[in-house]
């Protein structure tokens, strides 16, 4: 309650509102991200009080992740890497003529994910953090290995192609300086390649450029999405019955998102895909996923937002930033003399309460603002497609450039755009590529760290209980999927 008293003044609430609005804009524009918004606004917070400063930065962070769903649903282009999985069902639902419903579901479950993350941060952060402390390089490598085995589930019936796509993602992520020994790999003497390909360039190339050049045919035919503009939905786009029916999916998505958020580095960019696959595997009707079903949107949106709460837990409990955004937040706290870590609960308990209250208010504001603007968002689809997609393509190029102010990142979107287009033509799924690309660096870092720590003894992964569980589940689920996939193919062959 003291936290709410600290932020319930016009100045702080106005800063949270500004943070949320800027965050949503950054999240909604492909190429810009919440991290960028937090980094840009950090200097403005130096002169503020610690409560005002951290409230605004957290609002930017949450707004940035939530805003990603708008472009994902309406344009089938993820606004942030955290909303890639939203395209599969959100984009499909919009295509099927229900953009209001898709946005309503996405916006509501973004809030549910946000509130779940905030609640966990408020009530069980120290307990979660002490469990996370048991994780060494072996456990991290095992968890990421488990996530990588999910690649086999990201196929549209063709597991081999999904695995090839995942391997390609892993190999492209290896370009640049290797972890541990800083050896250059596949740089071909080009210094621009030393730091590898940026995730933003990959995402824009693979999803946005591919969508623009593929959409050119439709646009030229004058295929406006008239069906999508017809009719409005009442309320949030789903019934109370649907809400109850999807509770298990919601819970799985939130827990997976939170868990991945707690692990350093991985973040929302893979949480949404991993949660989507997990929910699909646990569903009684996995065949509905990808056709524009409510569960698919919930899986992606609840998880990527719950992940944000998860990333804050090790930050405040242990002083460990999980990703670039929380690293900036850590800087924002330290500027005001606050040192996150186990002592923060004793020394700065009021500030933690204020952070929780600010996140709660920001989550509600994001929900209200996005829901209020749904009509406006959908109206954008009424713009002629040639105008809309041209502007989006331009924003993508600008987004790729402003990420590091490096022209090489802009050239990289051409490469990934060409690969993405080739994948689309050859019907190779793009999601495994993205998952492999995101996870490679973390996997290699922890795997090699574990090898160096345990003198190259691989049996250590099976001797440590947590890592053994993840590796065994990963291998078993992959074998199970391979067998069931082979059976399906055999049945299909017999039928034909």
């Amino acid at each position, binding site marked *: 309650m003291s936290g709410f008293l600290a932020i319930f003044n016009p100045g702080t609430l106005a800063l949270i509102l500004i943070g949320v609005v800027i965050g949503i804009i950054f999240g909604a524009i492909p190429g810009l991200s919440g991290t960028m918004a937090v980094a840009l606004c950090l200097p403005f917070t130096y002169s503020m009080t610690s409560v005002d400063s951290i409230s605004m930065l957290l609002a930017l962070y949450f707004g940035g992740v939530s805003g990603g769903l708008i472009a994902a649903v309406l344009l089938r282009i993820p606004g942030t890497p955290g909303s890639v999985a939203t395209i599969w069902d959100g984009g499909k639902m919009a295509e099927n003529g229900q953009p209001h419903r898709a946005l309503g579901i996405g916006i509501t479950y973004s809030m549910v994910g946000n509130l779940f993350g905030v609640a966990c941060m408020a009530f069980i952060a120290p307990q979660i953090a002490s469990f996370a402390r048991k994780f060494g390089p072996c456990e991290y490598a095992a968890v990421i290995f488990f996530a990588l085995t999910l690649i086999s589930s990201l196929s549209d019936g063709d597991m081999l*192609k999904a695995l090839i796509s995942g391997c390609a993602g892993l190999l492209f992520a290896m370009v640049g300086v290797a972890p541990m020994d800083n*050896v250059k790999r596949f740089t071909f003497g080009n210094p621009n390649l030393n730091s590898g390909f940026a995730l933003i360039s990959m995402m824009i190339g693979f999803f946005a450029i591919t969508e623009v050049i593929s959409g050119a045919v439709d646009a030229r035919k004058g295929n406006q999405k008239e069906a999508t503009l017809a009719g409005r939905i009442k309320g949030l786009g789903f019934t109370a019955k649907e809400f109850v029916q999807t509770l298990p999916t919601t819970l799985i998505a939130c827990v997976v998102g939170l868990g991945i958020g707690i692990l350093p580095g991985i973040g929302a960019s893979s949480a949404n895909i991993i949660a989507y696959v997990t929910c699909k595997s646990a569903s009684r009707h996995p065949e509905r996923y990808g056709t524009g079903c409510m569960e698919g949107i919930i899986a992606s949106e609840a998880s990527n937002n719950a992940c944000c709460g998860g990333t804050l837990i090790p930050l405040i409990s242990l002083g460990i930033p999980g990703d670039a955004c929380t690293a900036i937040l850590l800087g924002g706290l330290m500027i005001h003399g606050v040192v996150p870590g186990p002592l923060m609960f004793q020394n700065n308990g009021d500030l933690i309460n204020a952070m929780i209250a600010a996140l709660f208010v920001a989550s509600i504001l994001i929900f209200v603002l996005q829901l209020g603007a749904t009509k406006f968002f959908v109206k954008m689809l009424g713009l002629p497609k040639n105008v809309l997609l041209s502007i989006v393509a331009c924003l993508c190029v600008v987004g790729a450039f*402003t990420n590091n102010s490096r022209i090489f990142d802009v050239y990289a979107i051409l490469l990934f755009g060409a690969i993405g287009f080739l994948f689309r033509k050859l019907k190779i799924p793009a999601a495994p590529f993205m998952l492999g690309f995101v996870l490679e660096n973390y996997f290699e870092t922890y795997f090699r760290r574990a090898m160096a720590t345990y003198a190259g003894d691989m049996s250590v992964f099976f001797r440590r209980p947590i890592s053994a569980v993840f590796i065994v589940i990963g291998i078993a689920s992959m074998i199970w999927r391979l067998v069931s996939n082979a059976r399906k193919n055999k049945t299909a062959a017999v039928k034909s």
Partner: protein
Amino acid sequence: MKKQMRNDFISAGIAIAFGIFVYIMSGSIVVKRKGGDIGSAFLPQLIAGIMIGLGILLFISTFLKLRRETSQAPKEEKDGGKEWIPTLLSFANIIVYVLIFKPVGFIISTFIFLVAQMWIMSPVRKPSLKQAGIWVLIAVITTLAIYFLFTKAFSMPLPKGILSL
């Protein structure tokens, strides 16, 4: 041969060729092993090897499918000939935009890109003067709005190119 099978053969070929290329290139990676570290060449070679294996499996499974289905009078599917034109033009336009983005500058390159892209994607091949005027107006407004939003509001520099001279 069905289009899907042709696609699968091409996918398998690309996977095998890419895997071999990466495997060969991995040979030149400097290996500095400390303690039990596996070195920086291990994972690229492992993944490249897996990729080659997957490519071969895809080739074999597609070949077996082809043998099964040859008796069923396969139909040759054709790509929609002219449908490639807007796609290729769009990609070419993006390539030109990206290449001139820095040397020419954001404002001019974006204006040219937007007008060209709106024309490429438009159902109208020969636009009227009014239509062209609308595209030019949209391009000018969008370019300036993005430029001032990024450079002034977000303090993110965009290339000035020839306008800085």
